[in-house]
């Protein structure tokens, strides 16, 4: 049975190893899609609608075409079709410089017949709201209902009840590298695209389909990538447009989204509003849960969220709806549906615990079926100093009040089949590990090197890792669902093991030992039963001559496992006069199975916490009902955490087993709930709406006073 072996046997796996691309990234040598400049390359720009809902009556490209330096102008939407949100693509240009392209799109004349629009959930659900989807009755989807147990019976057993409404607004991904591509045709049958993507092969297949080419005649390259978080799974309109402009002009075309477009059309986390009534028994069992909620994913649907979450409720009824608005569509965003669901559930848990007069942690212990989280509660509480929290919320003295809270989460991350990889040993001793996955910044490149090096007795820097390129024809899935490590690691390990086996077979006769007695370590192959028989790695591989060893691997299910429990504790300080909130510390205890690289695993947890922090205290999309436009499609008023906001983060890699489990998404889940509960513990008044900004804190304090 395949296994990763015992921790004591691992030389590299589970240790803290700096990422291989770190130096290139901090020195600027690493080339992101944004940095790719091809000889003779043109710049693409897209004209987007500023109107949220309109019929396209006419598009006149002639003035743009006449501008010197413009090489191509194409319509994207057809006359007669409908614009359904701000930012929707109308037409595109390719020009000699980016400045000319910018000027050119402003010369495209568009005749729009404005239609009534709604951009907020409240407006969409109001009586007499304009109908904005043809396929729905009203602007709300049919509710999805789930029932279990006996709800009324459950409430009958409840000693306490809480009824509350929780809200989380739309959050956008804010990839630091915006979506974009550089497309170039070698001839009319061969396309190369540098893409900022989470799915090299998905992008390749989409473009091959778009241009009716055999898939192997499209090459997609993603050497380095500046963040996707679920929003970059295909070329999108912008990628297909770049390739189209490149084909028309016979030149390379770079087309990156502007920051504004990134907010408007490149995806978002849907909003959530849930009205919940829940009850618990006098001995602290969560017994009944009745929830009606909705969210908006823009003009599309997909605004699901987890409710209830994590904790066991025997009797429940939930009803969820999508609300359509004239705004750009949602896309998967880091643990879709989980952080907002967790915020509401963990807030509710604290409200129930308080009514019961229980410590919220004890209340969780009673209702949390996960043994892993039970252990995490103990560890996390110890690490944050849970005993220091206010036993009476808001009881601290002084203007600045501190408090603590806890939140929980769960995720899958077990990976899946479909990755092909090749590990090659060359006669000069060099080793290549190649697969079509992509490194979004998660550190998968380094992890591949670690796995191959561990297997081959080499150092990670000895392994040349090639990822982010479709040309070797070794597909791997998109990097989503925290599936990458658990999908790729087993294949790399088995490929490296197969290559090692082949090398041992070549060397065994010379060492006069059976193949199964050979081992490799410290650049040396040796015989386990007779340590005097050794051969240096390069001497062994030197005998391969022209016959490099090149082996594939299999996705061995025994090497991975799904399911990742997580718990976070937050300590905050609230200035009760200004409403300013400082998060002092987050303790993140994250179940992750086998951490191939403990250093980058911690980085993943840090990054997740920071993203959760943004959702908790800063990030909110503001839609203006009067103009139909997003008011903060920038990074001035759409605020993300910076140095001053990021607290001390104690990332605890809670590795309970030695199988690989993905950890990209789960660390962002418990953060908003933990912070919201800490704010309550600090000031004794609950903010049920994210983000918890000074206005909401001051308003809540004012209501409490009144």
């Amino acid at each position, binding site marked *: 049975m395949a296994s990763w072996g015992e921790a004591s046997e691992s030389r590299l796996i589970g240790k803290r190893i700096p990422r291989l691309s770190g130096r290139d990234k901090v020195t600027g040598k690493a080339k992101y899609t944004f940095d790719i400049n091809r000889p003779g390359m043109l710049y693409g720009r897209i004209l987007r609608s500023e109107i949220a809902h309109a019929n396209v009556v006419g598009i006149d490209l002639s003035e743009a075409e006449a501008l010197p330096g413009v090489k191509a102008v194409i319509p994207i939407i057809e006359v007669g079709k409908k614009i359904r949100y701000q930012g929707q693509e109308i037409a595109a240009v390719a020009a000699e410089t980016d400045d000319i392209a910018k000027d050119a799109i402003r010369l495209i004349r568009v005749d729009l017949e404005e239609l009534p629009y709604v951009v907020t959930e409240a407006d969409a659900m109001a009586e007499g709201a304009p109908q904005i989807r043809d396929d729905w009755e009203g602007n709300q989807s049919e509710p999805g209902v789930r029932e279990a147990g006996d709800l009324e019976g459950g409430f009958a057993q409840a000693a306490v009840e809480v009824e509350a409404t929780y809200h989380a607004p739309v959050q956008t991904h804010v990839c630091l590298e915006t979506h974009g591509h550089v497309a170039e045709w070698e001839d009319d049958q061969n396309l190369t695209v540098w893409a900022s993507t989470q799915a090299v092969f998905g992008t390749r297949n989409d473009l091959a389909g778009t241009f009716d080419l055999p898939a192997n005649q499209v090459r997609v390259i993603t050497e380095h990538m500046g963040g996707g978080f679920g929003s970059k799974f295909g070329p999108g309109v912008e990628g297909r447009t770049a390739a189209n402009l490149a084909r028309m002009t016979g030149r390379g075309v770079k087309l990156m989204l502007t920051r504004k477009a990134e907010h408007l059309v490149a995806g978002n986390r849907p909003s959530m509003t849930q009205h919940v009534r829940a009850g618990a028994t006098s001995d602290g069992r969560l017994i009944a849960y009745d929830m009606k909620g909705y969210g908006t994913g823009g003009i599309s649907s997909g605004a699901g969220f987890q409710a209830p979450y994590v904790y066991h409720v025997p009797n429940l009824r939930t009803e969820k709806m999508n609300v359509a608005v004239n705004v750009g569509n949602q896309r998967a965003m880091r643990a879709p549906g989980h952080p907002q669901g967790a915020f509401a559930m963990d807030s509710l848990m604290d409200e129930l615990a308080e009514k019961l007069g229980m410590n919220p942690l004890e209340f969780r212990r009673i209702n949390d079926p996960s043994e892993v989280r039970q252990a995490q509660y103990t560890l996390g509480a110890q690490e944050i100093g849970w005993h220091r929290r206010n036993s009476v919320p808001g009881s601290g003295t002084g203007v600045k009040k501190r408090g603590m809270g806890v939140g929980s989460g769960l995720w899958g991350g077990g990976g899946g089949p479909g990755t092909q990889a090749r590990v090659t040993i060359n006669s000069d001793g060099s080793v290549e590990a190649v697969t079509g996955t992509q490194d979004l910044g998660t550190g998968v490149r380094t992890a591949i090197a670690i796995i191959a090096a561990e297997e081959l007795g080499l150092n990670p820097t000895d392994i040349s890792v090639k990822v982010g390129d479709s040309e070797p024809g070794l597909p791997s899935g998109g990097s989503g669902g925290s599936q990458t490590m658990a999908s790729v690691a087993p294949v790399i390990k088995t490929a490296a093991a197969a290559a090692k086996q082949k090398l041992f077979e070549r060397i065994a006769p010379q060492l006069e030992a059976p193949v199964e007695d050979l081992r490799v370590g410290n650049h040396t192959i040796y015989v386990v039963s007779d340590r005097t028989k050794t051969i240096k790695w390069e001497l062994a591989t030197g005998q391969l001559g022209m016959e490099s060893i090149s082996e594939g691997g299999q996705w061995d299910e025994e090497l991975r496992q799904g399911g990742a429990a997580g718990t976070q504790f937050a300590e905050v300080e609230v200035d009760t*006069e200004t409403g300013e909130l400082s998060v002092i510390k987050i303790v993140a205890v994250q179940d992750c199975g086998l951490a191939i690289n403990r250093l980058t695993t911690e980085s993943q947890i840090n990054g997740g916490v920071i993203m959760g922090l943004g959702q908790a205290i800063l990030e909110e999309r*503001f839609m203006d009902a*009067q*103009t139909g436009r997003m008011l903060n499609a920038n990074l*001035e008023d759409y*605020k993300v955490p*910076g140095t*001053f906001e990021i607290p001390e983060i104690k990332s605890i890699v809670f590795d309970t087993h030695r199988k690989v489990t993905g950890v990209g998404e789960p660390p962002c889940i418990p953060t908003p709930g933990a912070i919201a509960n800490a704010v309550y513990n600090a000031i004794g008044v609950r903010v049920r709406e994210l983000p918890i*900004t000074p*206005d909401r804190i001051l308003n809540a304090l004012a209501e409490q006073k009144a």
Partner: protein
Amino acid sequence: MEKFSYVNASSLEQVTALLSDSGWGEVMLIAGGTDLLAELKEYVETPKTLVNLKTLPGMDGIEADASGLKIGALTTVADIAKHPTIQHHYTVLAQAAVSVATPQIRNVGTLGGNLCQRPRCWYYRDETTDCLKKGGDICYAVDGLSKYHAILGGDPVYIVHPSDLAPALIALGASVTIVGPEGEKTMSLEEFFTLPAANPYRENVLQPNEIVISVQVPPAQPNTKSFYLKAREKGAPDFALASVAGVFEMDGKTCKSASVVLGGVAPAPWRSKEAEAALTGKMINEMVSKQAGSDAVKDAQPLNDNAYKVTLTQNLVSRAAMMAAS
């Protein structure tokens, strides 16, 4: 941005002559450019000519002597923040300066630019929204999203003045020197700023052919304490939700005179004569400081989303007063 021609200024006469050729927006001045560039990129402004002031001699630098401070308009915000005399004797100004934006912006942003910067209002900054400030019919903040807008002096345009330096300088009793075709004039900085009721399109009295060249601050008084308190959502970079510049001449716990100027809550830096009156001549304690806070906001008229600013401003004023007495 639209194309423009670029002129390196060689003299103030040349600058005012260039400005005199047209009205607002045709010829614009650039120094640090930290505000202007964003306006150009967003097509909020589309000048034909930019006049680079950084080539003007003698427009930067801080003179500190017995007669007070003289700060050239091209002095960077960073230089103000780190000037030892300002740090020691004009604390409110140093604190305001270091609260501006980020180190990169403070290193290039200038005093003149900071005083003359345009509003951050998200309706104003959107090219396609034809708001009252840009010559349209309505201030969208009135019925729209107004979290960051004015609670005082708004009617009919509810922007807030974004400057941090202005409230501090006004609290210090600063004057500003302006050059136009007719020559030089000096006026109090407080009177330099105007409210939308007087002119909805501009935030100060400057005419299209005038330029700010320096700011003078009277000598620091002994026994004076001064503070700049700025509440914001992010540590940096962020504009004030509300700020208070307070300069207090103290005799023990008794306030002999007070100067209280609010930022981030009105279309101009807002001198709170009410708060000053509540403090002057009083022994400062919690009750007095609270009174000053509530007096400061007694005329506040919040919009839909910014009632919190009333509480916030009130608390900041009280806090500044208590700090003066401690």
